C-alpha cells in the first residue's frame, strides 16, 4: 500500500475537497429540509418533502472509492447516496433541483432524493435495500460483452449485506469473473437495528470467501486507507480479474433519516460517531503532515460553500414541473 506521502498533493486536496463538499452539502440540505417542518415536523411539508437520508460521517467511503472511477464506470448507490453521487461527479445543481422537486432536476422532479440518475456519469441509486448488487453485475456483463474496461461499483449498507441479492450477485459476478466492486458501507446500523443483531459475522469481508473473491475490511476513519483498498479492487476489475468485496467501517453522524428521534441509539454511540469523523480526521492529518496549510483548506472550504450555495439557489429558483408531466414518460418513445 502506498503511503500518504506517495500520493500527489493534488490528489489529496481533491479528496479533501470532495469530502468537505459532501459534508457542506448534507448539512446545508438538512437546514433546508427543516424549513416548513418546524415547529411541528411534517414529513410532507417544506421545500424538500419525503424522506431524507444524509451521509454525514460517511464521506470517506464515497470519496475513497470514486477517486478511481471514470465517468464510464457505473456506480449504483442506495437510499443514502448523496455522497457517492457527488464523488461520482453528478451535476450538483441538477441533483439539488431534483431533491427540491424541480423541473430542472436530473429527472425533472420525478425521481427525488432516493432515485437520483445521472446517465452522463453512469450514476444511479434506488430506495430498495440490496437492489444495487444485481444491477452492477449487469454493468459488468456489458463491459465484458463489449470488451470495454469500465467497471461497476455496487454500494450497500451493512443492513443490505443480509439481503438475498447480496449473495446472488456476488456469486454471479464471481462465476462470470465480472468487473464489479461490491462496497459495503458499514455504519453499524440498519435504521434501529445494530449490525451485531443482524449479521452473523463481525466483518462482511469474511463473506467474500463464500464466492472465492478478495474481501477487505477497511477503516473509514482513514480515507487514504479506503483509497488504497479501492484502488486495488478497481484495478483488479479493470484487468479482468473479477470482482472484489470491500467493507468500509464508517459512523452515521445523523439519524437514519431526518426526523429520526434515534431513541434506540445509545448516547455513547453517537458520541463515538462524532469522534470518528473522517473529515476532521483527514483535515488534521493534512495539516499535521504539512501537506496543506490552513489557508489552502479554507480556500477549498469557501469554494465548496459557494458551490453548494449556487446549487441550492439554482434549485430554489427553478420552476416546478408542469403537473401534467406526471402522466408522461412511462414508456420511451411513445405517449
Amino acid at each position: 500500500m502506498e503511503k500518504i506521502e506517495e500520493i500527489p498533493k493534488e490528489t489529496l486536496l481533491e479528496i479533501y475537497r470532495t469530502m468537505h463538499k459532501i459534508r457542506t452539502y448534507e448539512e446545508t440540505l438538512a437546514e433546508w429540509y427543516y424549513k416548513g417542518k418546524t415547529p411541528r415536523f411534517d414529513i410532507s411539508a417544506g421545500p424538500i418533502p419525503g424522506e431524507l437520508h444524509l451521509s454525514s460521517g460517511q464521506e470517506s467511503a464515497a470519496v475513497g472509492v470514486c477517486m478511481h472511477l471514470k465517468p464510464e464506470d457505473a456506480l449504483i448507490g442506495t437510499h443514502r447516496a448523496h455522497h457517492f453521487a457527488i464523488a461520482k461527479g453528478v451535476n450538483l445543481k441538477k441533483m439539488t433541483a431534483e431533491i427540491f422537486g424541480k423541473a430542472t432536476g436530473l429527472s425533472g422532479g420525478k425521481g427525488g432524493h432516493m432515485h437520483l440518475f445521472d446517465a452522463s456519469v453512469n450514476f444511479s441509486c434506488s430506495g430498495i435495500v440490496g437492489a444495487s448488487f444485481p444491477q452492477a453485475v449487469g454493468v459488468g456483463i456489458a463491459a465484458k460483452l463489449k470488451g470495454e474496461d469500465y467497471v461497476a461499483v455496487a454500494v450497500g449498507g451493512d443492513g443490505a449485506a443480509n439481503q438475498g441479492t447480496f449473495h446472488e450477485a456476488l456469486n454471479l459476478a464471481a462465476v462470470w469473473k465480472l468487473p464489479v466492486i461490491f462496497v459495503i458501507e458499514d455504519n453499524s446500523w440498519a435504521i434501529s437495528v445494530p449490525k451485531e443483531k443482524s449479521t452473523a459475522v463481525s466483518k462482511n469481508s469474511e463473506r467474500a470467501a463464500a464466492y472465492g473473491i478478495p474481501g477487505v475490511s477497511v477503516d473509514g476513519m482513514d480515507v487514504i486507507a479506503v483509497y488504497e483498498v479501492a484502488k486495488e479492487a478497481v484495478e483488479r476489475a479493470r484487468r479482468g480479474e473479477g470482482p472484489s468485496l470491500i467493507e468500509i467501517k464508517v459512523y452515521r453522524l445523523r439519524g437514519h433519516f431526518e426526523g429520526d428521534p434515534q431513541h434506540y441509539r445509545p448516547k455513547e454511540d453517537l458520541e463515538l460517531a462524532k469522534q470518528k469523523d473522517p473529515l476532521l480526521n483527514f483535515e488534521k492529518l493534512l495539516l499535521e503532515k504539512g501537506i496543506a496549510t490552513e489557508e489552502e483548506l479554507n480556500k477549498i472550504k469557501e469554494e465548496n460553500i459557494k458551490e453548494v450555495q449556487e446549487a441550492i439557489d439554482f434549485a430554489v429558483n427553478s420552476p416546478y414541473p408542469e403537473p401534467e408531466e406526471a402522466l408522461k414518460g412511462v414508456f420511451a418513445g411513445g405517449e
Partner: protein
Amino acid sequence: MARKLPMYKAISEAIAQEMEKDENIFVMGEDIGAYGGIFGATSGLLEKFGPERVRDTPICESAFIGAALGAASKGMRPIVELMFIDFFGVAMDQIYNHIAKAHYMSGGQVKMPVVIMTAMGGGYSDAAQHSQCLYGLFAHVPGLKVVIPSNSYDAKGLMISAIRDDNPVMYFFHKGLMGLGWMPSPPEATVEVPEEPYTVPIGEAKVVREGSDVTIVGVAKMVYEALWAAEELEKEGISAEVIDLRSLVPLDKKTLLDSVKKTGRLVVVDEDYRSYGMSGEVIATVVENGISLEAPPVRVAYPDVPVPYSRVLERYVLPDKEKIINAVKSIM
C-alpha cells in the same frame, strides 16, 4: 368509551391484547422492536413482551416472511411487518406461492394463521418505491385475505380478526391515516376505540354515508376523499352513498350490489394503479350481476404511472375530492 386513539395505537393495542392471551403470537419485522415500527404499529410491544416475542429482523424479507410459514406450521401465529408494501417484490414468493397456498396444497393439513401487515400509500413525496398501494396484486392471487382499515376503530377490530383468523391475512394500513404526529392524517381517522378487544369481521364492507343518487366505493384514505366529495355534492343536490370496502378478499358483494341497485350509479375511487386492479374488479362485479346502471361507471384511480416525487406531480395524479366530484358530475 370516550377514548380516541390514532390508528397506529389502535393497531399496537390490538396486537398487545391478543399477545397477552395467546402465547403463540409473536411479531417479526424490521425496526418493530425498539423503534416500535416505522409507522408505530408495534409501538410498546417490545417493552411489554420482550425481544423473544418481538423480534427485530435483519433486512431479509424472504427469510422472515418464509419463517412465518415455518412457525405457523408448528402452531405459532406470527405477525410480520413488511415495512412498505412497495418492498413486496423481494418476498413475494414466500407470500403467494407458500403461505397463501399451503392450506390448499396440503389438503387442509396445514393452517397458516399469519398476519402480514404493511404500510401503503403516498401523498408525502416518498416517490416511486415508497408510495404505492398494490393491494390489487394481493387480492388477485388466491389464498390471502386482504383487509384495509380506514379508521382506528376498524383498525383494531380488523387486526384482532386477522390475528384470530386461521388463514393468512394481508393487513394494509395507509400511512396517511395512522395519526402519527409527523405525517399528515385526516382527523376523521382517529376515532373512539373501545379498550376491550373486539372484532370487525373480515369481508364486511361498511356504508359510511347513505345516499341515493350515486355509490362511491373506496378504501383507506380514499374513503375520506369520497366523504368530502359527498358533502360538497350534497350542497349541489346530489346525494352520494359512500362505501368503505374494508376487505377486498373476501369482497362484500352484497353491500356493494345493494347500494348500486339503489343508486344506479357507480364511481370507484382507487389509490392503487388503475388498470387490472381493484377499480376494474368492483365495476365488473356490479355489471356481471346484472345491475342496470343509469350511466356508465367511472373510475377515479391512480393512473398507470410510477409515483412521481415532486409534490406538484404527485398531487396531480393522486385521486382526491375534486376528481371524485368531477367524476360524479360527469354521470349525473
